């Protein structure tokens, strides 16, 4: 085949030359070309090697259904594989490579697989590699040996490891009417709905609207169809209530008429337009959907049907009419229906020589005979192509007489010289979206195709999608669908007049040609995954009859094209093998996506620097003062405020020491804060906490514990009584959302009679905790309007005052075990108050401290956090039984005493001391014997660890079987992942100041 450009056709812009590279070679094309059309115009026919057999492959189609011509695009140093050349628009600087060939496309070592063809039939892997090792050539071990070679030889493009620097975007859209596909039916539908004043989105996967009008060569409304379509699209785009999305494929149809679409915003230019993403993921919620997705042409299955130069007739017509490229000089056609005659006429008019038209039918209509005469070339009726000739490019086809009953070709072989064979096996409506949205499709015997199912969601279909077989019908059904989608009625007026040759729409039921004598090679059904007709029959012989089994056993219809060209021929061959009809054989359900979707578009704006962050009011201060920040959920919290040259451990030990010996301050703004108000607030808290809150005096705080309904611990925290009916509940940072939802559910669903209002105020208050022996002295200097002595502000007391003019609420609480206060102010005053407190603390050497020091202080005290409250522990496991009120029921009280939850031998809270002077590890197991080689039974695990400055040892908290009963025992840490083994002592979790004299002092 040798393609060439013609001078008088197509929508390409011949004034704009585009240069690009394919496999290292420079080529040029015109603006508007796809990579496929530009390469065809340059005489390139070989586009890639096939998946399994490394057979040379050219282009089969001209669109999104392409199984063969897949290329890798290299852009910004990143490789993207498996892009159909038929869809890839060329741009200046485009670099593309063919796939699955080594060392080069023309000379491919892997092609030796073709010689071993019979070995690699369906089920090859299962048969060769599964099961026990019997002899040298069977079994899983053999697979492990061969895997590397096979993985290298098979496959398509390779994924890249480079970071994707492109930006992606997500858009939500609502419309009254979504029209999918902008062929004549889609344009008519969009126009009708838009004229009725509806909000319309029209999505078109090609860069230019018009669908078949762009290449049909018909006349609509007195104008060439392509011009008519361009004018229609332009008029629509100018309407305020219409959004025309080109380069957009709708790929998913979900519940509630929600559809997903991918807009390829920047794939057709070398550099992205500033502010524009590469891809845009659309979530479209449509009142009504009009599906005008057209139809895909089917190949005919015959030996050698994958040789470069063999393509679909509609694709050949499209290359000539839309891109001004003749895919061959001497073109033969092979068809079972009338549509290929229109292609022959177009190709002939464009300047190609028509070698022959081979038709499987004995009898054709007079109109088609006229077309054949106009096209020239021999008309061979009742015959079929039974083989192709040539190496990496087609040189001719073998034609034999066809037995229409058995589908076998026999008798005298005639060779017709041709460098391109354009074939048509009929048309299959693109019912993918309709199938996703509902029931099984319906077979139509006349059209030999599956038609869309009855709608289970509000959609309407029109055009070739719905089985229309000519443009006039498509215009009428499209217009009527658009009017009905807009809530109106079908119009009786005549749609635009169409001039087109009159064709018989019904194909002959021929799917496969089987030569009776002489094996002439593989007859491909699924070109992309190298599934042959023989593979389908093998699946049948081996009992894989159902279409779902057929698909999985042979991989028919898998891969990136999802069987757009192979689906129906594959079914037909299986149905034939089983001696049943195609509808009896059934069809697989289509699932999203209709065509490949970039992962980037799905993750759009939810990762990296565009994901949401929660920052405390003092965030900038921390960063400015050398804090190393760490994530805590969406929050960012200071980890340490390291000095130059300090290690992480040195920094947190220094910070923790400062707190124990002087005074330190930590940002606690991230704690969950819930305002609980209303006449029943105290009663409500009594029900949700294990301990009583109705007895709490106003102006005091109390530590509380919450269980889940199943009796396990949900969260802990302090709750402050600010007024008779006014409480401020605090939760751990991580559980804030969970606790809020738990409380709301109880109030809304189970206790709607309680008069309580809950408000999340986490972000409204900034909090600073000041801890250390000097904490009170700092407050005395900083706070006006209240005294902070032990009388006025006892342990768990609350006072109100001012810090440098800003109102504050101070509660005397301690997480560190030291004399400590939490100072809260409005978030807007956060940094102001923080700085004022630090200034007041300066004479005492106050230092800010981070999460590591906070953790160290609480481990030394044996206070629990989310690391211990992991959803599996009970209050007893944490030795918090004293908080379980016996005087009242509370959430979880009925379930917490179940047999398995009160077992003394559950894993329970203990302290751990490292005996070898080495650090412990979070998550490490505790075992009873120190053996690296053999696994030991785990008796628990470490939940938190640190270096304790007060004990001068590495210590940790752990949940260990039996808990207290093991105090004083020796055990071992076993951490195989980090290779840490060593002796530990199990002790009480109250390492430091168990009486609490420091915080009460």
């Amino acid at each position, binding site marked *: 085949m040798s393609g060439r450009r013609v001078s008088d056709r197509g929508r390409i812009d011949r004034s704009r030359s585009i240069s690009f590279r394919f496999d290292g070679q420079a080529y040029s094309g015109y603006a508007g070309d796809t990579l496929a059309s530009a390469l065809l115009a340059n005489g390139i026919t070989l586009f890639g090697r096939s998946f399994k057999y490394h057979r040379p492959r050219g282009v089969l189609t001209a669109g999104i259904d392409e199984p063969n011509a897949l290329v890798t695009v290299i852009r910004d140093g990143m490789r993207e594989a498996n892009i159909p050349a038929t869809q890839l628009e060329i741009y200046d600087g485009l670099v593309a490579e063919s796939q699955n060939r080594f060392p080069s496309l023309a000379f491919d070592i892997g092609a030796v697989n073709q010689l071993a063809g019979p070995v690699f039939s369906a089920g090859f892997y299962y048969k060769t590699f599964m099961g026990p090792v019997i002899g040298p050539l069977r079994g899983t071990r053999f697979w492990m040996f061969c895997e590397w070679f096979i993985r290298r030889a098979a496959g398509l493009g390779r994924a890249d490891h480079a970071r994707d620097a492109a930006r992606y975007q997500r858009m939500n859209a609502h419309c009254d009417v979504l029209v999918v596909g902008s062929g004549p039916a889609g344009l008519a539908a969009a126009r009708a709905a838009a004229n009725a004043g509806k909000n319309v989105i029209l999505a078109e996967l090609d860069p230019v609207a018009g669908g078949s009008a762009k290449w049909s060569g018909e006349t609509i409304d007195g104008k060439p169809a392509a011009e008519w379509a361009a004018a229609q699209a332009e008029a629509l785009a100018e309407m305020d209530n219409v959004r025309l999305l080109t380069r957009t494929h709708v790929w998913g149809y979900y519940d509630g008429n929600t559809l997903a679409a991918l807009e390829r915003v920047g794939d057709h230019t070398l550099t992205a337009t500033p502010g524009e993403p590469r891809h845009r993921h659309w979530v479209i919620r449509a*009142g009504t959907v009009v599906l005008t997705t057209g139809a895909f042409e089917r190949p005919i299955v015959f030996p050698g049907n994958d040789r470069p130069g063999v393509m679909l007739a509609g694709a050949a017509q499209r290359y000539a009419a839309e891109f001004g490229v003749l895919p061959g000089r001497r073109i033969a056609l092979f068809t079972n229906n009338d549509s290929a005659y229109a292609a022959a006429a177009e190709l002939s008019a464009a300047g190609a020589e028509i070698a022959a038209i081979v038709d499987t039918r004995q009898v054709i209509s007079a109109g088609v005979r006229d077309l054949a005469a106009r096209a020239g070339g021999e008309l061979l009726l009742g015959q079929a192509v039974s083989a192709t000739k040539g190496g990496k490019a087609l040189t001719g086809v073998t034609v034999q007489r066809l037995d229409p009953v058995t589908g076998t070709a026999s008798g005298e072989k005639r060779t017709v010289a041709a460098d391109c064979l354009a074939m048509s096996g009929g048309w299959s409506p693109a019912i993918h979206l309709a199938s996703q949205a509902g029931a099984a499709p319906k077979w139509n015997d006349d059209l030999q195709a599956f038609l869309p199912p009855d709608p289970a*969601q509000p959609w309407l279909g029109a055009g070739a999608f719905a089985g229309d077989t000519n443009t006039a019908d498509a215009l009428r059904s499209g217009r009527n669908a658009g009017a009905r989608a807009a809530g109106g009625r079908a119009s009786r007026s005549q749609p635009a007049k169409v001039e087109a040759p009159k064709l018989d729409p019904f194909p002959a039921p021929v799917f496969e040609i089987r030569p009776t004598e002489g094996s002439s090679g593989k007859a491909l059904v699924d070109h992309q995954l190298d599934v042959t007709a023989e593979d389908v029959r093998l699946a049948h012989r081996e009992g894989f009859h159902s279409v779902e089994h057929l698909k999985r056993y042979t991989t028919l219809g898998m891969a990136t094209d999802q069987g757009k060209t192979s689906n129906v021929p594959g079914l037909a061959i299986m149905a034939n093998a089983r001696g049943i009809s195609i509808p009896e054989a059934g069809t697989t359900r289509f699932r999203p996506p209709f065509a490949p979707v970039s992962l980037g578009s799905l993750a759009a704006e939810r990762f990296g620097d565009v994901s949401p962050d929660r920052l405390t009011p003092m965030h900038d201060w921390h960063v400015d003062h050398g804090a190393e920040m760490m994530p805590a959920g969406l929050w960012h919290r200071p980890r340490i405020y390291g000095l130059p040259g300090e290690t992480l451990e040195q920094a947190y030990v220094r910070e923790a020491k400062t707190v124990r010996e002087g005074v330190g301050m930590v940002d606690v703004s991230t704690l969950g804060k819930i305002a609980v108000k209303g006449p029943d607030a105290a009663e409500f808290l009594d029900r949700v906490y294990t301990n009583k809150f109705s007895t709490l005096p106003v102006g005091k705080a109390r530590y509380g514990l919450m269980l889940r309904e199943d009796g396990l611990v949900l969260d802990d925290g302090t709750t402050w009584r600010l007024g008779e009916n006014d409480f401020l509940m605090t939760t751990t940072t991580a559980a804030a959302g969970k606790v809020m939802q738990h409380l709301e559910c109880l109030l809304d669903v189970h206790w709607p*009679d309680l008069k309580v209002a809950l408000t999340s105020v986490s972000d409204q208050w900034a909090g600073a905790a000041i801890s250390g022996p000097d904490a009170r002295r700092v407050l005395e200097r900083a706070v006006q309007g209240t005294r902070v002595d032990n009388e006025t502000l006892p342990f768990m007391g609350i006072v109100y005052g001012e810090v440098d003019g800003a109102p504050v609420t101070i509660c005397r609480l301690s997480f560190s075990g030291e004399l400590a206060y939490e100072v809260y102010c409005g978030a807007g005053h956060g940094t102001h108050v923080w700085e004022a407190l630090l200034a007041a603390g300066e004479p005492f050497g106050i230092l800010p401290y981070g999460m590591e020091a906070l953790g160290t202080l609480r481990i030394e005290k044996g206070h629990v956090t989310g690391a211990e409250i992991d959803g599996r522990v009970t209050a007893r496991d944490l030795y918090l039984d004293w908080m379980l009120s016996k005087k009242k029921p509370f959430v979880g009280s009925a379930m917490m005493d179940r047999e398995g939850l009160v077992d003394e031998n559950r894993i329970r809270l203990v302290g751990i001391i490292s005996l070898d002077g080495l650090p412990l590890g979070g998550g490490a197991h505790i075992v009873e014997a120190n053996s690296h080689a053999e696994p030991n039974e785990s008796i628990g695990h470490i939940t938190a660890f640190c270096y304790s400055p007060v004990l001068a040892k590495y210590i940790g908290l752990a949940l260990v079987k039996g808990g207290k009963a093991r105090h004083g025992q020796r055990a071992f840490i076993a951490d195989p992942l980090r290779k840490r083994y060593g002796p530990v002592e199990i002790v009480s979790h109250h390492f430091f100041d168990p009486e609490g004299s420091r915080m009460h002092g």
Partner: protein
Amino acid sequence: MRISCPYCGTRDVAEFTYQGDATITRPDPASTDQNTWNAFVYDRANPAGKHSELWQHSGGCRTHLVVERDTVTHVITSVAFAGAKRKPVSAAAPKRKAPARKAATRGKAPS
């Protein structure tokens, strides 16, 4: 899937949090009967078809809604405020009508 929140209007399911089976009733808090509590915490019917479930509009008004939904087709037939049909909390308390929160019910959701 979209849910018509009686406060906020029709919103995407991404704004809602599933909060469980709406057909179960919390036992009398004073009860210590393990079977009753076990049924409340664990026993679920998992029907294929019509189901009454709780959804919280967590990305909106945060109200809990009772949504009648077909688990096979995802068709929602009604949405109402939760709590309206519930019994008072304590079995000891006299049975009375639920608080007068108007249960806004919508017809067939625009699926």
